[in-house]
């Protein structure tokens, strides 16, 4: 387990299948790659074999989207077992999941869905994080979500909720700066205050991504976490603020749609490295 506050700047990219051959052939200029765990939960084939090759050259971050930690149902033990097999095979430097739910009533909904922040949901998420960490035998980094609605029943804000999960379970946090920005705009909040309220020592990784612009029924900005555009200027500025608070943290550029050339993403990763080198914690 790596210390949450890794001192030297470390930047990574989400590994896209369209880039894997090029990354291996010429050696991509990154310090680590991140993959979605569920894309590799197959019995065999070229995807797993290529990931073995990538892992032989770079540390991996394993990013899960399927645990449904915020779901009402108990965790899917078969899914935990699949994660455990991937962790044993690829020995990732980090394993992360989301403060969200994605399945209900046996149906997989394939999105990171929002939950009310209440005493009940806090207890449930903590129970699930505990169970995941003990089943997998390692610490989990929990990612703050992009959300589009809030709930009347919520009794605490997201930062407080995350602080409590960290305090009760010992998990770490994956700070998605784009999600922090998107959620703040979408709910009239303050993204800087959100980041300042998080327990900084627990933040083991940072995500940066692009969003899409929309408007809500009142004509106010509604930002969509699209992973389909370069990191926005406002998110770079928020990232610089986070670095001043936290110091360098392993930082990932996420891009899942309209994926550009590998070299374009490498340049964005270098921009994150430069920001870390220029930060003054």
């Amino acid at each position, binding site marked *: 387990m790596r210390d949450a506050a890794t001192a030297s700047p470390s930047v990574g990219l989400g590994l896209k299948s369209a880039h894997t051959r090029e990354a291996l052939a010429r050696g991509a200029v990154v310090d680590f790659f991140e993959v979605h765990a569920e894309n590799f939960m197959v019995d065999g084939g070229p995807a797993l074999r290529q990931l073995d090759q990538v892992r032989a050259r770079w540390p991996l971050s394993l990013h899960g989207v399927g645990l449904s930690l915020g779901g009402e149902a108990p965790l899917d033990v078969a899914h935990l077992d699949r994660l455990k097999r991937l962790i044993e095979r690829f020995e990732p430097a980090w394993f992360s999941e989301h403060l969200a739910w994605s399945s209900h009533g046996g149906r997989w909904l394939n999105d990171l869905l929002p939950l009310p922040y209440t005493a009940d949901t806090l207890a449930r998420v903590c129970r699930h994080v505990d169970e995941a960490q003990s089943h997998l035998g390692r610490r989990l980094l929990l990612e703050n979500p992009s959300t589009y609605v809030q709930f009347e029943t919520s009794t605490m804000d997201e930062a407080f909720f995350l602080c409590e999960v960290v305090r009760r379970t010992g998990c770490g946090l994956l700070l998605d700066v784009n999600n922090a920005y998107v959620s703040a705009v979408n709910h*009239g909040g303050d993204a800087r205050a959100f980041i300042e309220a998080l327990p900084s020592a627990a933040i083991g990784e940072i995500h940066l991504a692009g969003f899409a612009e929309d408007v809500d029924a009142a004509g106010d900005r509604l930002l969509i976490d699209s992973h389909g555009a370069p990191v926005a200027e406002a998110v770079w500025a928020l990232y610089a603020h986070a670095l001043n608070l936290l110091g360098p943290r392993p930082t990932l550029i996420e891009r899942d749609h309209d994926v550009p050339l590998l070299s374009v993403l490498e340049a964005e990763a270098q921009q994150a490295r430069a920001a870390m080198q220029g930060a003054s914690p």
Partner: protein
Amino acid sequence: MNTAFARALLDPWATVRGLRTWNGSDPSVRLDVYRNNVVSSLVEALADTFPVVRAVVGDAPFRALAAGHVRAHPPRSPVLAHYGSGFATWLVDAEGLAAQPWLPDLARLEFARVQAFHAAEAQALGADTLTPWLARPDALPGLVLHLHPSVQVLASAWAVVSLWAAHQGPGPTTSPPMHEAEAALVMRAGDDAVVVPVASATARWVARLCRGLPLGLAVTEAIDPVEAGDTLDLGASLGLLLRLGALTGATATTGDPDT
């Protein structure tokens, strides 16, 4: 809470109570973001698995068909490599496709390719591994051949193998005459999932080998007594499996050639 929310994601007419927005705006517009994410991402997953079905029916009709399938049959697992097993059946009952009755088989072929791509690894038998068995004709019928985990066969009353092949590679495609029964063996070879046209008797024989039937029984069952002139070229079929690397082992049920 989650029950109403989950239902609303797949049902555009369902509402969710208890949502709040900071500016008092109608939360249903925001709920639509989730609805769109859920359906469009799963439609995209089906589009990835069924590119030729999509090309044949057209993008917009495909997306409408896929969205219907997603709403009626959402995945049961977060591992989307296996999502779409019911899409062929969905196409059987879908409206507006009566003029293209081969679409379900085309979907089955494409789904088989994706499953082959992600199937377990296994070491292929060398060409000479079967030699000791071929010297013992009496033991051959009891031999159980183990096939590579990626091997599947598809037999269709339509020319879906040719239709699929016509959509590979760049350039314009010409549709083959569809009123011709065809069969194919699908498996992973190297990094690719290959589609190999085979005789219908060969497909029936391989299907029985996949079920673990011994060689002799698989041959007997593969020859269709109704179809006049239908024969199985066992030597050629066995040679094809060896050449493709589709055989991974052999077990005797009636005596071992080494004993």
